[in-house]
């Protein structure tokens, strides 16, 4: 379940991650951490906790272009 007040989220293309960990300190709300999951290349990959703001800092600093970032926005009325 996604919290009703969630502001954003990310998807991580873990297969391309090289486990450099640059995203971890880059994340302003501090919701990225290294998991104990390894991808096929053998690198530990990050995971995201609740509290992502969709700020794109991880996307900006990632050398391997693995972060897709989404912001949650209110659905406006028709018209």
């Amino acid at each position, binding site marked *: 379940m996604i919290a009703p007040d*969630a502001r954003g989220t990310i998807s991580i*293309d873990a297969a391309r991650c*090289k486990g450099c960990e*640059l995203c971890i300190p880059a994340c302003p709300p501090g919701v990225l951490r290294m998991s104990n999951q390894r991808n096929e290349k053998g690198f530990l990959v990050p995971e995201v906790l609740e509290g992502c703001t969709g700020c794109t800092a991880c*996307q900006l600093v990632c*050398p*391997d*272009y693995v972060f*897709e970032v989404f912001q949650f*926005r209110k659905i406006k009325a028709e018209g």
Partner: protein
Amino acid sequence: MSTTDIEAPPGKRAVRVGHAAPPLMQTEEHHLCPGCGHPVGVRMILEVLEELGVVDRSICVAGHGCYATFTATIDIETILTLHGRAPATATGVKRMLPDSIVWTMQGDGDMVSEGLAEIMHTAARGERLTAILLNNGVFGDTGGQMTAMSVVGQRTKNTLEGRDPGNHGFPIPVADIISRFPGAAFVARGSVHNAAEATKTKRLIRRAFEHQIAGSGFAFVEVLTMCPTGWFVPTAGGPDYLSTALEPVYPLGILREVER
């Protein structure tokens, strides 16, 4: 930005922000080391070209270094030229195609060790092109040797005890030198070691291309990038090494700007 099928909280929708991979890449795969800063710099160049709407007249002239791997994947017309000579090659291109947007991509080994003459004279001529220096202070592609921009004390494979000025001399602050040239319209130094500096650096790159579009003169952006492999530090320690070892020698900011 586009709506996606990502699950959103009730009453909200998920809107994609930016792109995982930068635009104008034929593939997002590359073989550069974990923690490398170059791909971050390359992303910014491509985003700026797209934002400025100059893609279909853009030509890249690249030198030889780790970043050259992108010459085969960026969807930008490219000359992969001889080591150190990108500014000269780019001069020939730009003089023949004055309306094109010509940019060079070089590392510190390529530009300052091998090709110092070319970058100096191209800047001095005020060639109306944009030169990007990806400076990680080391020959990454050959495995971690000293360049002309390695900092004093820096350990490399051919300065095992650290760069000793008595033997290896001092680093060359190329941007600072160019900032004294009347032909240079814009000279700046940025870094990609954290999100805030990366954001600023993208603005510098944008300014450099805007100067080329305006034809105001030579535009130069040095981008400090991490090379944890060549620095012999853990990948996560790259940003810290950059800010403590490189940044004091190569301070960030705009060094010169003339009116556009």
